[in-house]
Each structure stands twice: as structure tokens, then as C-alpha cells.
């Protein structure tokens, strides 16, 4: 078994934390797991990507057209990394753009989100989620990454039980933040389930 996903977003959105929680959950269930991340320059508002691979895997980098899913915390970042996901795969993305500061300076332009979604849909399955809104409802915008994890978990792409992820979430945050993160996870998961029911 080989499963790979890519978690992408903008520095500060909690991409690495989400990847770490997923990796620890996989280990809890006895899977081999690899993640790879980039530090340094990438932290200051730049784009961030982190691969999470489980099973019979060795390479820290995901090959093109081989990821089972991209979990994107920002629409443009989903498109930037689209090449990584296979055609049978899925992109789950938040819908709220973060405009790169260079664009405010008049350098380049931010592609209209509808166009971004169209391009993604023409390659693979696309699932949109307003993770900002859900995180706010759950109690903190900072829990956006956990909302995204909840959504990912609902899709059963990794054979990891929800209970293991919740356990790692409990271990990963100081006590006063645990509740809001668990709520964020549940609400992220429900948003996908509702979505699925609607499409049926």
C-alpha cells in the first residue's frame, strides 16, 4: 500500500502542524510514514508545501501525477501544485484567497477563483470548503488547519481512523485549545458529509 497527499498553503496557516498530526496518527496505527517540509525562507508568507506519505514509501518528494489528494488551505496554492495529483485523485481546497503582497504592488494578478476552480476540475475531482467560516464558527480562525484535516478525514483517503487523529489532536495542543480544535475537526468532517449527501 502506498498513499500520498500534499498539504499546501501559505506560511502561517498551519500546514506543517496539520501534516505532523496526520503523520503521528498514521504511526499510531502502525503505518510507515514520511513527511517532507521546507523551512527558512519559506516561512515568511511564502508558499508552503508538505508531503505526507504512508505505507511502502521511501521518497520524501511526491512524484508528479501521483498524489491521491491535495489538501489546500488557499485556492491559488491548490492550482500551483495541481501537477502533483493524479487524475483519479481529488483536490480539497479552502475558497478564501490570500493575495500575495507583490500583486498589491501591481506585479502580476491573482487569477479569478472561478477560473482556478475550473482549471482544477478539468484535471481531477474538486471539493471546495469554506474553512475560514467553519473555523470561525468553531471558535477560532487559527483552527482552520484542523477544519481541513476533518474534511480530509471524512473522505477516507488514508486508512486512518478518526479516533487516532482526535487522540493526536488532544496530545498536540495545550489543554485550553483542545476543545476548539476538536470542534473544528468535527465541523470540517460534517461539512464534507453534508456536501456528499447533497451531491447524492
Amino acid at each position, binding site marked *: 500500500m502506498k498513499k500520498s497527499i500534499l498539504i499546501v498553503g501559505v*506560511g502561517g496557516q498551519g500546514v506543517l502542524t496539520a501534516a505532523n498530526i496526520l503523520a503521528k496518527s498514521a504511526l499510531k496505527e502502525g503505518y510507515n*510514514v514520511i513527511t517532507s517540509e521546507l523551512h527558512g525562507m519559506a516561512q515568511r508568507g511564502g508558499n508552503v508545501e508538505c508531503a505526507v506519505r504512508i505505507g511502502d514509501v*521511501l521518497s520524501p518528494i511526491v512524484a508528479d501525477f501521483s498524489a491521491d489528494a491535495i489538501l489546500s488551505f488557499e485556492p491559488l496554492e491548490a492550482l500551483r501544485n495541481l501537477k502533483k495529483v493524479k487524475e483519479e485523485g481529488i483536490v480539497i481546497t479552502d475558497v478564501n484567497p490570500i493575495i500575495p503582497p507583490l500583486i498589491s504592488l501591481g506585479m502580476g494578478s491573482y487569477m479569478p477563483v472561478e477560473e482556478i476552480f475550473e482549471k482544477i476540475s478539468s484535471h481531477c475531482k474538486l471539493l471546495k470548503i469554506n474553512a475560514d467560516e467553519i473555523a470561525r464558527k468553531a471558535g477560532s480562525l487559527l483552527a482552520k488547519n484542523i477544519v481541513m484535516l476533518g474534511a480530509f478525514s471524512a473522505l477516507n483517503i488514508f486508512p486512518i481512523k478518526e479516533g487516532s487523529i482526535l487522540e493526536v489532536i488532544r496530545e498536540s495542543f495545550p489543554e485550553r485549545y483542545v476543545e476548539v480544535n476538536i470542534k473544528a475537526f468535527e465541523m470540517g468532517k460534517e461539512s464534507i458529509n453534508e456536501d456528499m449527501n447533497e451531491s447524492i
Partner: protein
Amino acid sequence: MELLGVGKKILLGNEAIARGALEADVDIATTYPGTPSSEIADSLSAVARYLKSIGEEPKFYFQYSVNEKVALEFAAASAVSGLRALTCMKHVGMNVASDAFMTYAYVGCKGGHVIVTADDPSCHSSQNEQDNRLYAKFASLPMLEPSSPQEAKDMTMEAFKLSEELELPVILRTTTRISHTRGVVECNEFEMSKKHGKFEKNGLMVTVPDVARKLHPILLEKMEKAERISEESKFNIIEDFGGEDGIITSGVSYNYVREAIDDLGIKCKLLKLGMSYPLPRKKIIDFMNGCRRILIVEELEPFLEEQIMAIAKEEGVNVIIYGKGYSSLSRCYEYTPDIVGKAMADFFGMEWNKKEMSINVAPRPPVLCPGCPHRATYYAVKQVAPPDTIYPTDIGCYTLGLLPPYKTADFLLCMGSSFGSACGFSHATKQKVIAFIGDSTFYHAGLPPLVNAVHHNHDFVAIILDNSTTAMTGHQPHPGSNVDGMGNETMAMDMESVVRGLGVKHIEVVDPRNIEQTKEAVKRALEFKGLSVIISKAPCILLGRKKRERVTYEIDQDKCKKCKICITKFACPAFYFDEEDIKINESLCTGCGVCVQICPFNAIGRKSEGIK
């Protein structure tokens, strides 16, 4: 604490190295932080501080040294005194340490000494992508190259033993994709002991010419022994997947090769060189004799390839060897599963039919954080400096001054090159020169060029951006800090006294968050004939951010005349256009308040109610 636990843990390659050092009962660890090596030392610093917090005295000593050369010299003294030592640095840090390093190979050590060089193919956070495996050959020192976090730990432990057996420091060479990969690592029970070194004098540790001439052949003898060890090393492994052709690889590339063998169903023999210097000559000859053709898969320089070609030639082995230049295998940038997969598909005559997809989206380069004091300094400087001013810069977050609208970075080579090159620019041209350097970099490599500038009376403005930390690499302390990597109180250097002590005549200390004051200081410095120094002092905005009271600013849309100075000149990332209006993103605003001073229409004010 996770890093001290037992059993299977998910560790970063760098954490695995730290864990290996702890399990090997390391006594001394030194570093100068640099991506992608930083977390090795940061982990040890965290362990030391954690142990102290629970009332235990750490059994090892750890230090963020002033630079890599001092870090290496400190550890070398410990190792020749019989202690186990670890020194970690990024690849270009080895250049700084290399003066000590090259001769240290002659002198050797008694306690095990592992020198970690973390290379950065593709320059993810570096000024070049030099291949430090060449340092092993250059200095004649043994080298191990892990392919995974587990191996990073195992090899660190083995390297201590190897170092003691050979009485030579041993290089552990990683790359970004090993240092910054997390994987499952088996963590065993361990106990550490507090030891004291004993320096025993002998006539062979003062490397005057006569001694050095005696030491060189001794080093070569030790390396002959190292080659015999390499022949038997458990890290030099042959795997047989059938077929007549062979692949030789090392480091992270092994993973790409191994997955390509699985995915493409390739039949071949595979030699993985974990101890990649000195090479196991006999093992390589035997391997080549069993093959018709060989493909060498290694990132960056043809380090293995040139040596293996030479071995084949010398031994008359009849085999065709392919490496750099074959198919997709280049000397530039890190390899990926696709680069290696394509080369292997071509080599084994298989189809490689991955379609192309070109995605053209706006780049998202890293930027100075909202509230970063460097932005205020750059803004003030650009207001008063002549347009053709030359801005030599240095290594740190502030190198991002390169980006518009500041464009306060024109020339950069390495740590400390700002002041050194400023001496040259001020002499070679009639342009004004304003050189920037960070506080940690100033202590690391900025002092000698400043001495040079004082001594020769070079005419430029040196601005030290003092944000009280080594921000770029993760906020490590430096000689200006009052706590060290062990959590002990230290003697913090007073930068102004240091500069004054060097004989600089014109010095001003400013808080860049006061724009007018900073502009005036820069004007005076530019008018001063000779060397002038401005210490632009304000803490990194990320320091203590969780403890600060949360204030944010907002724009009064009635007063705003849309002159856009806040966006086009100041360029704080918290500002954005909402249709025609300019607004401040309250989740990004850090409340530094500098923008209030740059708005000509007094349209920016403190938001009355705090946000959640």
C-alpha cells in the same frame, strides 16, 4: 519531552541526528545555526533547557557559537581532550570552518567527533548549492551519507565509533530532503554520563611545517584503514533485483531509485553507498564485474562517478558507466522521483510517458513580516539616500529587502560580505554606499571587515539591523543575547560599545519604528566623510508576540486620499485593496504603528476595540 521518549517516534532527520548524539552519550555540541541544519542544535538546546526546567543538570554542554569556525575549534579541543563532540552547520558554514577543518584532519582527535554538514541542493534557503562531499575528499576524512531519518540516527551513532577507531573527525553529510524529512525512528533506552576531558600533550598538535609534514602521511595511513572499514561497512549495501545492469547511488537519491525499481518493475543490481568516502574499492570492483552497464545516480557533482570511473580504468573493468549528462541527470538542483524515474526508464529502455502540465500562476515569494522593523529601516533609508546608492547586503531575513519596493539589496556573497564589499565599492566608485548587516551576522563575520573599514578610513554607511535575535533560522540566541543555548545567563555584548571600541567615530543608535528620527540619522551618516555606523535597534516582531497586548490599526476611509504610499512604498503585507478602498487585514496587522507615520493624510489610526 518527545525527543527523550523511547520506542517508535516520528522525527525530523535533524532531530534523529540529535537523538543519535544523545544515545551515543555526546559530551559537547556546537553550532552556528543555518538552514537546513538548524534543528539539530535547536533540539539539543531544547533538551538542555527542558532538563533544567525539571531540575536535572544536563550531562552534555551545548553552545551556539559565534560562527562555524569557532564552533569547530571548540569541539575539536573537546575531542582531542577525549570527549565526544558534535558540530553542526549548513554547507556554506563549512567554508567558514574550513580553515580549521583542513588542518584538524592532520591533527585528528581522541574522543569521537562528528561534523554534520547539511547541504542544500536547489538552494531552498542558501546562496549556492555547493556539494560538500568534496570536503571529505579535499581534507581526506571519512564521510557517511544517510538516506532516511532512521539512518541519520544510526549513522550519527556509528560515526562516533568510527571517529574513535580512526582518531579522525567524521563527516555526516545530509541534504535538505534528509534534514527536513520526518520519518519513523526507533528510539532506544539510553543513559548519559557527565565526563571531563583530559588534554594530554604530545609534540604532534602544533602544526608548524615540520609537524605538518609528519602528520600528512599519518592521515593517509588512517584513511587506508578507513577504506578497509568502508569495504565491510553495513552502510554499503548491495541489493539484487535480477538483470545484468547496475545502479550505484547514495543519500536521498537512493529513495527515488528504489521507488522507481518498484514502480517500473526494473530488474537491476543496486549498490547503495552509505559510507561514501573513502569508497569501498574492492566492493565496487566486484559489483562492476557483475554488470554490463552502470548508471550512477547522485545529486550535484559527479563525486562518486569520477572516482568510480577512475577505479574502473585502473582495474581494467569492462563496463560502461553513465552518470551526469545522461538523460535527465544534471549537476544542477536536487533530484526528484520524476528526474530519477525518467533517467532509469531511459536507461532500461522503458516508456516514460508522463504528460506535461504547465501551470502559470502568480509567485508567492517570502516577504518581510507585517511589523518587521527592517521594513521601517528600509523605508527611511530610501526616503533620503540618492537613487544610485549601492546597497551591499548580508545573510538574514533582511536580504528580502531585495524585493520591490525597497530594493535595498544590490550585492551579496556570503556572511559578512556586506561590509567587506562596501569597503571595495566605496573605493571603486563615486556612488554612496549603504551596507546592511544583521546583529547575529555582524558578530559572526562583520567585525573583521569593520576593522578594515576603520583602519583604512573607507567612506560608507554601515547599518546594523539589530533585532536582538538570529531571526531567519528560528530565533537562536547570539552574543548580544543575555541567555545562551543551555538557558544559562550570559554576558550580553553591548553593540554600541563594541563598535565604538573598534574606533568608529560616527555612531548613532536609532529605533527604526521612529521614521523621522531614522531618516535624520541616515542623512547625517551620509553627510559624514568616512565610516559611519547606524545601529537600527528594534526587536524582531515575532519575539514575545503571544504575550503582547493585541492592538491593530485601521484606515479612516473619509481621510484616505488613495495615494497608496502605504502599499507602493511601505508595502506592509497587512494592507490590501478592497475594490477601490485600501484596508488593513486585522488578522495580519501586528500593531507596530509605523504606518501611522508614513500616511501623509493622517488616515491611519488605532482600532479602538481589540479583535479576537
